[in-house]
């Protein structure tokens, strides 16, 4: 008797889990060794406003997907949006990646779980009191030791209302966590300089204090050697980081752009002009 009640309880829970939540979150779609779903930050879309959506990935242990610059191998996820007239998607916003690999081949990406963000702007002339179906065709390369290309069709339906959008409590934690992992603009008081030496770039950072750890993830491919160790030298006000040049770099570059990681939750977007002056001592 007791067993059957417990069984019934579990069964009801199971059924509840199976019922997709309306609005903020469609059911997850399978990709190789993982799932993806499209989630909304707000409960509805308002004409003339912007709403963030998320491509929410979950991967099986050991499998990974790639950052916008995948590094030495791999390929970032690609999305083709299918949006109703009056809705326009912006650029994907990518959380700071992890270094994947320890040998001569180093990639940049994400394992376990990651959510890529995308802003969607609604035209002021969009008519309210209807539902908008947002669709996306996703292509994603999922790798562990081997790589498996996957495709997924994901979609989400949200109401359009003429009142200002309100956040959806069901996804607020997810969006907060994803935003925390996005690289932030570097504080205005920080100073950066990049020197162009024969075989390397030296990134000098003045952050107003001692820094023990720093690593750089290049946004452009073929600028620095992804697998080379990044040697850090502490200075009283920051650090100097030596970035070995990529063998594929045959011409001088004007800027070095990428993500500077000081700790897991301290990542910054930097875009520094490359000086052709000698390294200041």
């Amino acid at each position, binding site marked *: 008797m007791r067993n059957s009640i417990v069984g019934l309880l579990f069964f009801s829970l199971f059924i509840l889990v199976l019922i997709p939540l309306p609005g903020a979150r469609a059911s997850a779609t399978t990709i190789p060794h993982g799932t993806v779903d499209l989630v909304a930050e707000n409960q509805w879309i308002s004409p003339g406003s912007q709403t963030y959506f998320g491509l929410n990935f979950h991967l099986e242990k050991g499998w990974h997907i790639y950052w916008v610059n995948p590094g030495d*191998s*791999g390929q970032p996820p690609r999305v083709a949006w299918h949006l109703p007239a009056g809705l326009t998607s912006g650029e994907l916003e990518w959380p700071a990646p992890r270094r*994947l*690999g320890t040998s*001569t081949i180093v990639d940049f990406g994400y394992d376990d779980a990651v959510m890529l963000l995308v802003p969607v702007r609604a035209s002021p002339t969009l008519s309210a009191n209807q539902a908008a179906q947002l669709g996306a065709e996703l292509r994603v390369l999922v*790798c562990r030791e*081997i790589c498996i*290309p996957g495709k997924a069709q994901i979609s989400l339906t949200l109401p359009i209302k003429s009142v200002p959008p309100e956040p959806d409590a069901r996804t607020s934690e997810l969006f907060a966590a994803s935003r925390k992992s996005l690289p932030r603009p570097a504080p205005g008081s920080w100073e950066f300089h990049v020197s162009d030496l024969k075989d390397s770039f030296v990134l000098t950072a003045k952050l107003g204090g001692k820094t023990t750890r720093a690593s750089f993830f290049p946004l452009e491919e*073929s600028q620095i050697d992804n697998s080379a160790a990044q040697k850090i030298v502490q200075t009283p006000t920051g650090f100097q980081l030596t970035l070995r040049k990529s063998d594929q770099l*045959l011409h001088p570059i004007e800027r070095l752009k990428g993500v500077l990681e000081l700790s897991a939750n301290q990542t910054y977007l930097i875009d520094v002009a490359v000086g052709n002056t000698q390294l200041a001592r």
Partner: protein
Amino acid sequence: MKRFITFLTLVALLVLAAPVLVLAAKVGQPAPDFTGTASNNQTYHLADYHGKFVVLEWHNNGCPYTQKHYMSGNMQKLQKQWTGQGIVWFTIISSAPGKQGYVDANGENNYMSKMGASPTAALLDPTGAIGHLYDAKTTPQMIVINPQGVIIYDGAIDNRPTDDVKDIPGATNYVNGALGQALSGKPVETAATRPYGCSVKYKGTWF
């Protein structure tokens, strides 16, 4: 004495700080020499092909990016076109035993006849020695060596880094570019690119 120790420390530091000398395979540099055993049981020595253009193609038959260029017939077409003009083409398989793309001689011969591949030879490099010599990172990765033995192209096969067969028509093929320009005595316009594809499945790597 103290000064002597300081001196010794300085010497030690200088020695430790000296850059590690690596014989880098790099565009504009001489192509490192190698000897390889092919699936046809013959031994090939790169230096024997001095005076000819040589193409190196890193290969893994299980890699979706390699498959893109073989299922479409694109790689076979390139092999036929260029070996037909007297250019030497080595397909190189650096997958370690047990890893994706590893084949023995029979396996590779069967694959080549099934796919209609016609490189000069398919070199079996299960230790990864040739792959590491050229710092090959992906499959496919393409290298073009000129008759003087200098690397004139190193990188991707084309400018569309995807696994989608539909991206082949209209892509700029860098191997055709390098060989075409070099054969007509012009400098190679795009001499180095980021190779795209799967990582080479070397021994000891976990991904």
